[in-house]
């Protein structure tokens, strides 16, 4: 499979972001039912399942090159988006190994890894990188191993150290986040860094999730989907830069709603790492405009139902308050209330032209 990368995309200021029809249909739509509430929706991260984005350990798509460039821009502006506490060096190498081996095995036309003892040769063709280095020797790489490899991956990553029957977020590369700060949260325990999430604590979601993750086994990764909404195809919705992107939320009108508003989905994956016993948490971000969601009949109707019934605490926490009604006014006339199949799959294999769905 040869991915055609869209190299000129921009996720800031003069936005430029397009999904191909195949890109729309492989979007990991997060709603399997007409109502949404937090749950421990963790399942084995096995290949296959209802969405092509689940087919590889770490999904790469047409936005890969542009997203790596966006990450470099964020890091140039704010190096604190990548931090790892000093005791996590074994987990850094674990991460580098897992990502390089997965990329090379899953996308051999784009990545290669050759090992000669501890001397490794890494080739990343889309980014034009060739690097020979000694595994375990940070000075043979241009930057620390965790930063080195996550600069070449889509989505955010955090490293969880396991001790005292708890998980501590002791490192991360966080440049495409839904409004949380690694710089503030680094070092926190599982319940601490989830502190601001409403409702879920009271229904025991975090107690159960932590118990489950403490038993996560090497070789048996798991996944879940999480979601929010973002105005404009902006990857860096960090709290650090909230003064820059916060005003976007007041710009949604009935005329621009389907182009401005994006469903933001995180494909979250968790891998036990072999040497460090840490957990690598991948937070792979997908953006799809309302305009493209509408082209999938099931997703259009289901999104209307989910947003209509969303608990007010979640509307507030996810920052939807200022524009949810505008979105619903747009979606409601396009939902006839007919029953929808359960599950997240789109139930169609082709899309109507987006111009058509824009009229009605």
């Amino acid at each position: 499979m040869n991915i055609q990368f869209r190299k000129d995309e921009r996720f800031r200021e003069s936005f430029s972001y397009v999904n191909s029809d195949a890109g729309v249909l492989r979007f990991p739509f997060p709603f399997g039912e007409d109502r949404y509430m937090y749950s421990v929706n963790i399942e084995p991260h096995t290949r296959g399942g209802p969405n092509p984005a689940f087919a590889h350990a770490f999904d790469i798509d047409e936005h890969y090159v542009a997203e790596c460039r966006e990450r470099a821009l964020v890091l140039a502006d704010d190096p604190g988006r990548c931090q790892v506490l000093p005791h996590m060096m074994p987990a850094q190498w674990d991460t580098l190994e897992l990502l390089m081996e997965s990329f090379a095995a899953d996308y051999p036309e784009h990545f290669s890894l050759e090992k000669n003892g501890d001397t490794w040769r890494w080739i990343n063709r889309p980014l034009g990188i060739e690097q020979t280095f000694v595994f375990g020797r940070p000075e043979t790489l241009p930057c620390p191993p965790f930063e080195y490899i996550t600069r070449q991956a889509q989505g955010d990553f955090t490293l969880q150290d396991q001790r005292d029957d708890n998980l501590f977020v002791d490192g991360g590369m966080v440049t495409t986040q839904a409004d949380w700060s690694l710089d503030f949260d680094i070092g926190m325990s599982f319940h601490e860094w989830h502190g601001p999430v409403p409702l879920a604590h009271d229904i025991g979601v975090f107690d159960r999730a932590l118990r489950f993750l403490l038993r996560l086994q090497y070789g048996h990764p798991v996944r879940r989907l999480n979601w929010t909404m973002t105005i404009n195809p902006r990857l860096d919705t960090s709290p650090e830069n909230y003064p820059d992107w916060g005003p976007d939320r007041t710009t949604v009108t009935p005329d621009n709603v389907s182009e401005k508003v994006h469903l933001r989905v995180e494909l979250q994956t968790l891998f036990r790492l072999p040497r460090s016993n840490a957990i690598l948490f991948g937070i792979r971000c997908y953006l799809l405009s309302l305009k493209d969601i509408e082209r999938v009949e099931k997703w259009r109707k289901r999104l209307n139902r989910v947003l209509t019934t969303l608990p007010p605490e979640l509307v507030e926490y996810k920052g939807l308050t200022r524009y949810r009604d505008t979105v619903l006014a747009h979606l409601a006339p396009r939902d006839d209330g007919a029953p929808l199949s359960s599950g997240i799959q789109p139930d169609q294999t082709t899309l109507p032209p987006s111009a058509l769905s824009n009229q009605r």
Partner: protein
Amino acid sequence: MTDQGIKSRPIYAALRRDPSGRRHLYVSAGAEPPPPALCDGPLEGWSVGPPTAEGTRTPPEREGERRFRSASQLKATLARRLATERMGLRLYAEGPEDFLWDVFGIAQEHGLGRQEVFLKQAGTLARRVQCVHCKTLNEGVSTTIVRCAGCGANLFVRDHFSRRLSAFQGVKVDAEQPGDVPPAERAYP
């Protein structure tokens, strides 16, 4: 407003002497003597004179007592002391939240385990607030909204607390509608 339902806030219990310790050190950001529950045995007690003392110190009244001119001076001395400590020390700290977690951080840096340090909040509830945008630490914040000393943004003080920074998180309150700043309430006296 003061309970935002955020679960990263520490909860503190009254200080009690841990009988498994061999030596016991109590540090306080105030001038009060150690609580009686700590005192049935040898105890070192470090305290800080009030600002009204203006740098003067009253002499110690009993063995193991030590007085500092400021919390900063106490913390610097604590770091030097812990660098030479051996196993068996139990550390008890009492004071405002930023002091407690500064002490906890110093203890961790010098190898004390989480089970060897005991914290009790006392004194002012004023908060250290880190501006999430410009990273400035704003000290002694007693209101729900504070103007950041670094970047000038009006920050809402979130209940989200970092033990590493001994600080709460401040987020620009009018980021979405610039100028739309609600009145600050005195919430953390």
